[in-house]
């Protein structure tokens, strides 16, 4: 069952803007995905959360577009849109009825060309309040809401750009100034730091003409500062443990391991491993912890791909009432160790491959997903053609490669163990001393902790406006 090949063009404007176009006339729909090569990894200490706050400012108007009018115009054209910020990049996208495609291109160009014309303290203050409420809603006021931020904080050293959460801290958000916005915009929001993909019911030559017309006058920034070296040792070097006593109903044990960077084929193998471990009723962690031993309410494991030095693989198990969290931790880690000791069977591999293939078929049937992938692979790997080769890479992963990467990653000196305990039992458990791990243990009562929350939980990225629901 072959996944259809995505045919695309790939060119650059004189100002450096990379344009990728893939025509597909099946439905009268076209998607635009603009990726800027700037993410929270570009933030410096004291300015965390800024890339994402800036993303909000991008919806506050430009020379020819009023505050929030970007959304209004796209939706009134029958389109959908959003913007997201993550460690490695920021993206903005619209899916339009195809006869409104030009509008989306013009809107994207107007804010890239003239954002500062409309910038005001009032709008910045307003979006700062919105983002602080986003942080409260997504992370601080949610059970276990801080888990991914805490895991990333342990898996990456203090100096590393992935150490701090994309949502940032309240203090840093408070400190963000108009001057910061101007500087950030002038530094990173330049055509030579962007990729724009257009996929769907469109004509290549027409799209190129529109992009020349609207984006062509915007000058490049020849002085985009390079990132510092982000390379890291393959393993963390010690086990790190933290216990959080919080208003959670059931204990939950969360795990993280440092993993190969996004783009490394060994991460493909690890991705496939997550399917074997928690991808359905017959997966190893689910089967043992949830079904057979019935010690966990739920389990998961997944990778957070990142290009700078190392990714992480992280997961959790929620402990059933009455069960000792230590038992759940041992069982979870034993299943990881088994994968490191013995290659999975061909039957397991075959099922994982069949599901991966079907998922890819489904994902690539949407123009928006194709546009996103083209922009992602171009931005992160300078290779949009990965849209057509990534599946083959997954399908080529062998059972032994999975065992090898499991062995390399699932090590005691490469893991973070984060335990959430309900307030009711937390104090007692800590007095009794559950801190029997081999690594340094820190204990934090979430109530006293500075609100350094932020979670990338459900979606692994900090979303801006969700789609309107009726």
């Amino acid at each position: 069952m072959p996944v259809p090949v995505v045919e695309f063009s790939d060119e650059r404007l004189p100002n450096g803007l990379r344009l990728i176009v893939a025509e597909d006339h099946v439905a009268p729909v076209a998607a635009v995905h603009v990726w800027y090569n700037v993410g929270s990894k570009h933030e410096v200490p004291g300015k965390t959360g800024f890339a994402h706050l800036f993303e909000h400012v991008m919806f506050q108007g430009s020379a020819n577009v009023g505050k929030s009018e970007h959304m209004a115009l796209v939706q009134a054209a029958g389109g959908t849109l959003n913007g997201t910020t993550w460690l490695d990049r920021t993206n903005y996208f619209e899916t339009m009825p195809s006869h409104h495609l030009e509008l989306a291109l013009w809107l994207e160009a107007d804010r890239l060309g003239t954002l500062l014309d409309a910038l005001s303290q009032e709008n910045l203050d307003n979006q700062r309040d919105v983002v602080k409420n986003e942080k409260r809603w997504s992370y601080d006021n949610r059970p276990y809401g801080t888990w991914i931020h805490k895991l990333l904080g342990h898996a990456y050293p203090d100096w590393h750009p992935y150490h701090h959460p994309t949502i940032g801290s309240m203090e840093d958000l408070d400190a963000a100034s108009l001057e910061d916005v101007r500087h950030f915009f002038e530094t990173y929001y330049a055509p030579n730091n962007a990729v724009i993909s257009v996929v769907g019911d469109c004509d290549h030559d027409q799209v190129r003409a529109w992009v020349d017309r609207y984006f062509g006058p915007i000058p490049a920034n020849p002085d985009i500062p390079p990132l510092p070296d982000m390379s890291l040792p393959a393993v963390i070097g010690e086990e790190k443990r933290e216990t959080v006593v919080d208003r959670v109903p059931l204990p939950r044990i969360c795990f993280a391991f440092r993993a190969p960077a996004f783009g490394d084929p060994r991460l493909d193998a690890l991705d496939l491993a997550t399917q074997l471990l928690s991808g359905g009723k017959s997966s190893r962690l689910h089967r043992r912890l949830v079904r057979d031993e019935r010690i966990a309410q739920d389990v998961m494991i997944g990778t957070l791909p990142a290009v700078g030095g190392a990714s992480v693989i992280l997961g959790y198990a929620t402990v059933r009432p009455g069960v000792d969290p230590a038992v759940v931790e041992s069982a979870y880690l034993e299943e990881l160790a088994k994968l490191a000791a013995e290659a999975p069977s061909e039957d397991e591999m075959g099922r994982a491959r069949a599901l991966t293939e079907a998922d890819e078929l489904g994902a690539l049937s949407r123009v928006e997903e194709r546009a996103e992938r083209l922009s992602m692979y171009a931005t992160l790997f300078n290779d949009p053609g990965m849209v057509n080769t990534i599946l083959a890479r997954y399908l080529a992963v062998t059972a032994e490669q999975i065992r090898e990467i499991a062995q390399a990653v699932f090590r005691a000196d490469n893991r973070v163990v984060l335990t959430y305990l309900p307030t009711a039992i937390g104090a007692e458990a800590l007095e009794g001393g559950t801190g029997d791990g081999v690594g340094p243990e820190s204990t934090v009562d979430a109530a006293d902790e500075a609100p350094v929350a932020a979670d990338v939980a459900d979606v692994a990225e900090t979303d801006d406006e969700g789609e309107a629901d009726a």
Partner: protein
Amino acid sequence: MSPRAGMINQRPVPGEPRPYEFPTTIRATLPNGLRVIVTPMAGRQLIAASLAIRSGAADEPAEIGGATVLAARGLTEGTEVRDAIALTEAFERLGASMHAEAGWDAISAGLDVPASRLEPALELLAEVVRRPSFPESEVERLRDERLNDLIQAKADPRRRADDAFVSSIYAPSSPYRRPAGGSPETVARLTSADLRTIHAAAYGPGTAALLVAGDVDPDAVIAMASRLFGDWTGGRAAVTGPDATSAVDARFVRVVDRPGAVQSEIRIGHPGLARRHPDYHAVSVMSMILGGLFNSRLMSNLREAKGYTYGAYAGFDLRRSAGPFSARAAVNTEVTVPSIGEFLIELERIREAPPTEAELQAARNYLVGVFPLRFETPGPVAGWLGGLFIHDLPDDEPLHYRSAIEAVTADDVLRVAREHVHPERCAIVLVGDHEKFGADLEAASIAPVDVVADEPEAPVGVA
């Protein structure tokens, strides 16, 4: 600063719209009453197939509340011929992702599968729907998982607010007062016998439709359906119009106190209207203007003007009977009371005057324009047609939807707002730190306030 040289300040005008037609659907009815609804979509190799049954949690006896949802989950826990693991592995070998769930109005079991493996996947689907075994031990596990999930729901401010809201707006006689998946009292008693009872009563061809969309040959699909479901019997439980009696006679405030919460979850509303109500299209436009579009009145006010929230929305949950109408947001604790004030202003304002022409155009154009985007892939096509079947709506609704939306006038919006939005008699449910806003709330004299303590977390150590 002057606009950058060379930038084009003229907004583009739209091109010529390319006509869009909802894909043509082929329908058949098997002799046993099963409807087969096939939508060929050329080039869509991942097929969506699902069996929709017109019977849901609203139809189950109150004393086994939660049995319908649990039975749907139990479908994939084993059949007369395979246990859960063998079943899952069989689906996986086909590259098929299987799902089964139930809601208030319907049960749905379906899968996405590559076209070349549709037939064996449908065989498995038939096995799951027709011959589930509901093993005692697996049902106990599912039941315990549901009970634990209810504990989690209590600790999550959003779910807590949703649950407190519905229990505030519906009378005790209404099933909508509780979660569709059941409350702890009834779920704790559920057994596999209850699940079998639901299966025997509700699962049958007379109230079911098989929906298939994607790159398929309709005749072949109908032949598969005949082979796999032609001798299916049973079911046909009477479908009720669930009791949706309102408990809201006047405006009142209910606070679920959560000391230390950094935000207040707000829900404001009352029972709304049923999916089959003739005002459906006008209400869709009205709720877009009030709290659906990004630039809706609620978003423009509470987010973009005031910065009180990440998002403020309003909408109707359209069910067989009157599901809830709610306006909702999570706001900074300090602005809890001012936020309620702004919500009430907007709920009044939508009833006072017709929307502007620009608002009306934006809402209609969005709903009409987004229609082809919604149906780009097979899953949403099958899903929407399944919804029409469940609510016994006309087969040609997809052909008329856009013209019905286009026909909604400003006066229609005003009329349906007056008829279906009632800020003068609504529940205002808050989950937040009462100590921080309690005095302001009293001083604001919005309505009588009743405060309930958030119950402590479930005892740990008790299974």
